[in-house]
């Protein structure tokens, strides 16, 4: 405050007017205190309730957007796949045997069948050991052993698929080439399923084995949760009747947990069904319907991943590949919805 301002203040004070402070403010001789106040975000000042409401709306909108993602994906892929669906009807695409993009022939049949082969073999290998392991972890393992094993199984779930693929190339493929295939064609060669005409180990079986290890942790963790959720009283009742532990598990626990175990298997299946990189690296990628587990196959996922590079150069090729992605998406969605439907039925009649 300069001396003139002090004089002005004094004169106002001495003048004896009652509202001298207001007058001083008016002439900005004293300023309102500004320091010490926190700066705030210049948000509109809602009441707390209104804030809550607005946040709820926003979060709801976000949730709805995320929920619409699956239909949106199907729609976007469908729009991109339309050019080929106009030229070739869907039934021809699904049953067509020939894949010759340069001649305009796009038959998905070998790829779809190949996917089912690899996934089927993988699940056959994966389900028994993973269910048994889940039962062991839930029913037999002591807490200390369990807390040691669970992180290891989580670790298995975290390993990236290319690493699985490398492992497959380095160990599974040579194993099949040098040991499994010669052995099977020698002893089981009469069965067409085990006949080996493929000189390399890149085969349905290799894909299946890699997939099996990939879905181990998924089936184990879900199935274990489900089995542990069975009420303890049921077990005690069965044991009290003189049943052994295994009898209790087989007749009581698994019966109760059946639906959940099925859900675990379906989850593993859909994961295996859509796996791309690991399978692509070991399965051989020959566009022919396999007849034996030692034949190479060409799954749908591998088809999409392998050809993305050249897909813009050949007419209709991109439409065909995105149509393959659409088929894959719809198949996976169908499995999941079907399994949910079955599950609600099973639970209802329990």
């Amino acid at each position, binding site marked *: 405050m300069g001396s003139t301002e002090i004089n002005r203040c004094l004169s106002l004070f001495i003048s004896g007017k009652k509202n001298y402070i207001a007058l001083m403010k008016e002439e900005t001789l004293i300023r309102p205190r500004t320091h010490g106040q926190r700066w705030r975000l210049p948000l509109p000042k809602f009441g*707390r309730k209104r804030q*809550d409401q607005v946040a709820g709306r926003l979060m709801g909108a976000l949730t709805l957007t995320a929920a619409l993602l699956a239909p949106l*994906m199907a729609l976007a892929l469908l729009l991109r796949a339309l050019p080929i669906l106009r030229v070739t009807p869907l039934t021809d695409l699904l049953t067509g045997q020939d894949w010759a993009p340069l001649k305009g022939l796009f038959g998905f049949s070998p790829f779809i069948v190949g996917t089912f082969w690899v996934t089927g073999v993988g699940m056959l290998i994966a389900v028994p*050991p993973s269910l048994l392991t889940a039962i062991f972890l839930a029913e037999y393992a002591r807490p200390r052993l369990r807390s040691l094993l669970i992180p290891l199984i989580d670790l298995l779930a975290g*390993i990236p698929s290319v690493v699985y693929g490398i492992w497959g190339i380095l160990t599974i493929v040579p194993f099949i080439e040098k040991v499994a295939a010669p052995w099977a064609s020698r002893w089981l060669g009469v069965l067409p399923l085990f006949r080996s005409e493929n000189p390399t180990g890149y085969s349905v079986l290799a894909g299946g084995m890699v997939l099996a290890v990939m879905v181990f942790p998924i089936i184990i963790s879900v199935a274990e949760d489900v089995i542990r959720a069975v009420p303890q009283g049921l077990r005690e009742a069965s044991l009290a009747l003189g049943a052994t532990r295994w009898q209790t598990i087989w007749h009581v626990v698994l019966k109760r947990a059946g639906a959940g175990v099925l859900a675990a298997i379906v989850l593993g299946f859909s994961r295996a069904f859509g796996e791309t990189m690991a399978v692509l690296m070991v399965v051989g990628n020959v566009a022919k319907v396999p007849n034996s587990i030692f034949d190479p196959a060409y799954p749908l996922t591998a088809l999409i991943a392998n050809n993305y590079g050249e897909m813009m150069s050949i007419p209709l090729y991109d439409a065909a590949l995105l149509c393959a992605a659409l088929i894959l998406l719809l198949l996976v969605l169908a499995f999941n919805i079907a399994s949910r439907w079955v599950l609600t039925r099973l639970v209802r009649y329990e």
Partner: protein
Amino acid sequence: MKRKLTELFAQTLMGLSLLVVIGSLALILGTVIWKGLPALNLAMLTQVPKGGYYLGKEGGILNAIVGSLYLAGGATLLAVVVSLPIALFLQLYANRSRWVQFARLSLDLLFGVPSIVYGAFGFTIMLFLGMRASLLGGILTLTLLELPIMVRGMDESIAMVPQALKESAYALGSTRLETSLKVIVRQTAPGLMTAILLAFGRGIGDAASVLFTAGYTDRLPTSLMDPVASLPLAVFFQLGTPFPAVQQRAYASALVLTVIVLLTSLISRGLTKRLEKHIVR
């Protein structure tokens, strides 16, 4: 007697299965370390590929390491921003109306969608917007991929919060928003962190979704619109060359990727322990 034998038989089978599962883990880690370690050196971690790298000449995979960290880091950040509100909404705000049920079903279904489909979807969207393969495209696609994983993890951990805790917060007069931000998030911090790092691990290891959307380049990215390399694709491409020396590098790259993923899960465990002190029991 027969019952005892069955019991013994079943236990033997269980032991064998456990051996198969743990044995395959050991075999995978063993193979990657055994094959990858000899080819790993400092130059691989600190240099970008130089001319003729894919023929066996000098260089490293710094481009892929940095690219992968950018991709997965960016995607995880975005996914947190989107998933946390969704999980909170589903647990605290949502009623039992039809569309909330639809949202839950849809998110569950998204969880099962293969990553290659995310890649193809991201690709169609980028074609629609006229974008080229770029860091941004890769981040957005990975965000979509990580979203259902993260939402599920967060949803489960928020569901574990005791009802009494929520009710105490409400009884003190706090709104749902205040309860979410000041009570629930703090209480579930370990679970949220686990979900976030799980999604990060999934994102960094995924190859199929970035194949279309992020592209591949030997240079370090300087902007969001640049194409960007990633570790899984580096492994894949190097393995695809016919030169044994380059394939060796693919094994080393796989080892780097595995180490990053394992470190993530270790960090997740450590953080979870630290965050647990805020929990009301």
